[in-house]
């Protein structure tokens, strides 16, 4: 038991996480590429034409996974924020700031593909609907986190301030998720739910799940890659950084 605790905390130090992340990210990137290729193949060549929306529905294969990812990444950021505030670990803040740009990107993709889907199906690029508005707020929360942490010079104080935004903002995630139930919205309900059978063809569902996995792997690879740059930026004066093989001439 104590042995496991020791090992666990070992990886919470930037000096041991840096090489670990360096070894791990290429694997996640390779998985993302393979799953992405499989997902795209299913999206365009296996999944049948929708009887109501024709070929236009194929936007679902990025819209839904990107929206899931944008909500999930925010929850992970809030998790790291809570760890950082509780245990005062340096790596937590670095993980949060490594995740924020990717989360913002997926929120943007969710809004963008939603607009391109809304226009042909609803006749409007945008409506002030509960689901759309709360997702827009999520996008602004990401931008707010990035702007706030970038505006504070001392990285430890920036982490603290960012952690507050992440923790307060996380209440928005269940609001997005349940918005289609709580309010009368134009947006359709959940396509996949835990309690009942999915309301779509099996191949469509598989395409969506594989694309979601591809986005997961992409996000993990990107967060690990970016956190290495952040570790180098913040630990630049540490001896272990100067001893890294990539720092030698």
């Amino acid at each position, binding site marked *: 038991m104590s042995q496991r605790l020791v090992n666990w905390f070992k990886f919470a130090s930037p000096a041991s996480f840096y090489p670990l992340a360096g070894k791990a990210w290429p694997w996640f990137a390779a998985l993302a590429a393979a799953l992405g290729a499989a997902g795209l193949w299913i999206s365009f*060549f296996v999944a049948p*034409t929708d009887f109501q929306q024709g*070929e236009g529905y194929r936007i679902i294969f990025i819209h839904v996974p990107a929206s899931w990812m944008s909500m999930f990444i925010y929850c992970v950021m809030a998790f790291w924020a809570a760890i950082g505030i509780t245990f005062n670990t340096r790596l937590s803040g670095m993980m949060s700031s490594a995740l924020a740009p990717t989360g913002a990107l997926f929120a943007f993709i969710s809004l963008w593909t939603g607009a*391109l889907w809304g226009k042909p199906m609803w006749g409007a690029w945008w409506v002030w609907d509960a689901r759309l508005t709360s997702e827009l707020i999520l996008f602004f929360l990401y931008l707010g986190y990035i702007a706030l942490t970038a505006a504070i010079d001392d990285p430890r104080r920036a982490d603290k301030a960012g952690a507050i935004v992440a923790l307060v903002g996380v209440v928005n995630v269940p609001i997005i998720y349940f918005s289609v139930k709580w309010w009368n919205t134009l947006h359709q309900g959940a396509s996949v739910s835990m309690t009942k059978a999915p309301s779509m063809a099996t191949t469509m569902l598989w395409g969506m799940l594989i694309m979601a996995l591809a986005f997961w792997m992409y996000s993990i690879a990107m967060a690990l890659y970016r956190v290495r740059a952040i570790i*180098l930026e913040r630990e630049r004066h540490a001896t272990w950084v100067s001893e890294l093989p*990539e720092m030698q001439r």
Partner: protein
Amino acid sequence: MNWGSASEFFAMGGYGLYVWGSFGVTAAALLIETLLARKRFADTRGVLRRELSANRDTQG
């Protein structure tokens, strides 16, 4: 297989603009993020390498 020809594939049953606008922008966004992350890492490593090398030179 859903498509009779390449032009049918690109037309997406009349939804080409919307479908390709979604997939295209997503691909571009992920690509740009990847390139920016690579640049950030390379820039940081470059600056640190130069600093360390200058320190080694002054310390003899």
